[in-house]
């Protein structure tokens, strides 16, 4: 019996399309730290820069580590919820622990120009687009 590929290009195209969709998809879709991970983030745009905001109540500045490379941002740290030694707890709603989330943005980031601000338990990361990502107007000769 001769096994013949019905249409090699159809299979290849399907794979290629699936991969393109995965890599080019919307925000953070295919990553391990996708939707539903801690900390939740909001992303804004201001003058072409991305502004990533995350609420991290109870996380100390020194327990927070941020790394940016290419088009990915990693927010990693530890949230501590402490009680005095002799305390008896009546109500416990806050949760502590470690977190590590990696986000992929739809554009390359100019790593040298990234600024971070942490105030009142809210982290604001300003992520400017890399020069290569900015549109350039072309003069017509």
């Amino acid at each position: 019996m001769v096994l013949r590929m019905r249409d090699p290009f159809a299979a290849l195209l399907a794979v290629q399309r699936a991969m393109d969709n995965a890599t080019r998809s919307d925000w953070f879709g295919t990553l391990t730290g996708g939707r539903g991970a801690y900390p939740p983030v909001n992303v804004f745009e201001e003058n072409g820069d991305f502004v990533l905001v995350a609420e991290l109540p109870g996380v100390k500045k020194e327990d927070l580590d941020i790394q940016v490379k290419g088009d990915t941002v990693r927010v990693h740290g530890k949230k501590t919820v402490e009680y005095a030694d002799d305390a008896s707890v009546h109500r416990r709603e806050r949760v502590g622990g470690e977190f590590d989330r990696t986000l992929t943005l739809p554009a390359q980031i100019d790593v040298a120009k990234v600024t971070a601000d942490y105030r009142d338990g809210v982290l604001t990361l300003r992520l400017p687009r890399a020069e290569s990502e900015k549109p350039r107007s072309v003069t017509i000769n």
Partner: protein
Amino acid sequence: MAAVQREVALQEKRELSPAQERTEAAKFYSPYTDIYETKDAVIVTMEVPGVAKPDIDIRLEKSQLTITSNIDSKRYETLEPIYAEYNVGNFVRSFTLSTKIDSNSIAASVADGVLTVRLPKAAEPIAKRIALD
């Protein structure tokens, strides 16, 4: 302290139920709160991210302690949202205090988006022995 640190679980913000609805045109959330008791005080810690110290209002009426924390929504005015996972709003929560609290010496502080209110216990009323004539 446990040797193995847990991963922080995601907690959706809890919006106030309709029974507690307010007339203001803003979202109100119920902040995640821990309450614990030590020998001399009851301590309330509350997560209020994005709230600056002057925007926290702690009010004690009779035995009702109400804590309102307002966020500064101006910081979002110039920003164009493109992706969202949570909403922002003010925080409000009320507690009924036991009478054993010394309401004159309640102290509060805020750090990294966590408000801590210390409610000192009132000195126990001294038992009085009534002598019979």
